[in-house]
């Protein structure tokens, strides 16, 4: 009944344009890859382990990111003035690092000859070239983005709600857990997906810091890189496979996504 508004039309057209821009390359990729090759890859043990390592490292990194990142973001969101701006700059700094540099920085900090080398080797811990390194790399690279975005989320939460929770006897922890987090849960969900997506795509820093060891630190992204070195064609098939797996996972995860009661 409602006449379509010019404005809505504009939004739709805009979305369509953007959709084209984004979907076209993906479509081209799908068209260019042969299903047979993809099917073959599906049973390749090396691909399977790489997938497993990708998932494992992402899911190890996630809790770390949440545990360290959420409270930090919340704390940052409560800071004001110059302190806040300085902290934000520090947080944004690692974002611009090209992957190679990030990988080196990690080596310099946590490698055997790095700042913590002594300490770690005395403890008998070796970080580099382990799954731990993959996780640490992900955390180092993705967390700043995650924290900065969560700060924006928390900024959007009405301070009154926390106050109401406190008055009702909630400790600040409870106010955070039962009010602030649930209020931004849809945003958090989006952040989570983006964090995982970013982790999955990581490559340069991981190859430097964690190595490219099949079965141990080789994630799908590294496997694609490796197979690109031996046979570019196969790499594209592998990339397509990654897209398809992601599509399924994303669709599944969205089914479980928190819905907004408010609407």
């Amino acid at each position, binding site marked *: 009944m409602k006449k379509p508004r010019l404005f809505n039309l504009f939004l739709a057209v805009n979305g369509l344009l953007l959709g084209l821009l984004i979907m076209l390359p993906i479509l081209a990729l799908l068209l260019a890859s042969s299903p047979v090759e993809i099917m073959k890859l599906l049973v390749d043990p090396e691909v399977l382990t790489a997938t497993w390592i990708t998932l494992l490292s992402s899911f190890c990194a996630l809790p770390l990111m949440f545990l360290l990142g959420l409270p930090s973001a919340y704390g940052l969101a409560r800071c004001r003035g110059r302190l806040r701006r300085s902290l934000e700059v520090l947080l944004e700094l690692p974002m611009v690092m090209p992957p190679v540099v990030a990988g080196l920085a990690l080596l310099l900090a946590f490698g055997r000859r790095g700042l913590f080398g002594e300490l770690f080797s005395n403890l008998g811990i070796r970080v580099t070239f382990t799954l731990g390194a993959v996780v640490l790399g992900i955390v180092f690279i993705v967390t700043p983005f995650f924290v900065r975005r969560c700060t924006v989320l928390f900024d959007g939460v009405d301070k009154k709600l926390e106050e109401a929770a*406190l008055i009702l006897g909630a400790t*600040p922890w409870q106010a955070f857990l039962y009010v602030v987090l649930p209020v931004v849960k849809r945003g958090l969900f989006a952040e989570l997906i983006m964090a995982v997506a970013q982790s999955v795509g990581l490559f340069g820093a991981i190859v430097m810091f964690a190595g490219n060891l099949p079965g141990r630190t080789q994630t799908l992204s590294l496997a694609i890189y490796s197979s690109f070195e031996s046979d570019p064609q196969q790499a594209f098939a592998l990339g397509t496979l990654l897209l398809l797996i992601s599509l399924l996972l994303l669709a599944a995860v969205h089914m479980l996504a928190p819905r907004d009661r408010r609407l």
Partner: protein
Amino acid sequence: MSGLNCVVHSPLAHFKLDLELSVEPGITILLGPNGAGKSSFLRLLSGLTQPSSGLIKLGERTLFDSANGIDLPPEQRRIGMVFQDLALFPHLNVNGNIGFGMKVRGSGRVERQKRTAHLLDILNIAHLAERSVTSLSGGERQKVALARSLTTDPELLLLDEPTAALDPTARGEIRDWLRSVLVKLNIPTLLVTHEVEEVAYFRKRVAVIERGQIVQHGSFHQLLSEPTTEFIAQVVGVNYIPGEVTEVAGKQVFRSKGGLTFIAPFEQVKPGPACLTIYPWDVAVYRNLPEGSPRNHLHGRVKDVVLRGDRVRMTLVAEDKLVAELSVRGYQALGEPQPGARLWAVFKARESRIENFQE
């Protein structure tokens, strides 16, 4: 008996909040013009903001003491509060909102449900239990906020205009219910309101704040008989005429700011700024100035006529403003004057009260 005793100082945008107040168990009404600092005061009491200096004691417990560096965080103050803008949790439904306080205090689910259901029942919103609070009507939301504030066995209740959005029926019922609840709880309660009805209902203790200061603290009756400011007079519906007591030919007279001269019981006043108050129902209205009449009169234009019950309230404007309240019959006898008509308002000197301005 654990009352609330507090002295707080805190700067606001345009003035300073300087309050000293003792609140006994039971309801104390907090009255004041918009922006007087009522909500800010409640926030200070609840611990959501800190006074620049002061002392807040609830019974034996010290909630805040700037001298000794004590500042109990809000969640330990055991306070129930209805925020002026409610602050319901948008991610929870009605049940969840009301049960929140019990949940964080560790009550079991069964008890929580029972209590929530009971409150919903009393407030006539049982059908809303599962609704999201964001889709409620204004009054429904306010009921939820009120219910929520009562679930945590508070030792001090701070209600910031908790009935502003309620319909008159609900207001009456909730007022009755609140009183019965508070009689049982017997805790100090501050109720901010702009409703004269409410002030009249909880008439025993009323504190009036203006520009961050307590200007009067007493019973509704005291406000009515000796309003200390124009605002109070207006709230309780008393004519308040500011002016000056001067001596003319050895006799004291009252000259209003508008320039009229009135006579009043001058026994207790000294020459100087003063104000004269007279109840609207002590003001008589005539078409023509009656002979041998009381000497206080004003010839004014009817500004408006409002019928309330069997009474008619009429505002006459001339150099000063006088509100007169008469019975419908009296009004009819006057020929039902309409706004714009010119009438005489007359009152007896001994029925008026006069007082020197307090600083």
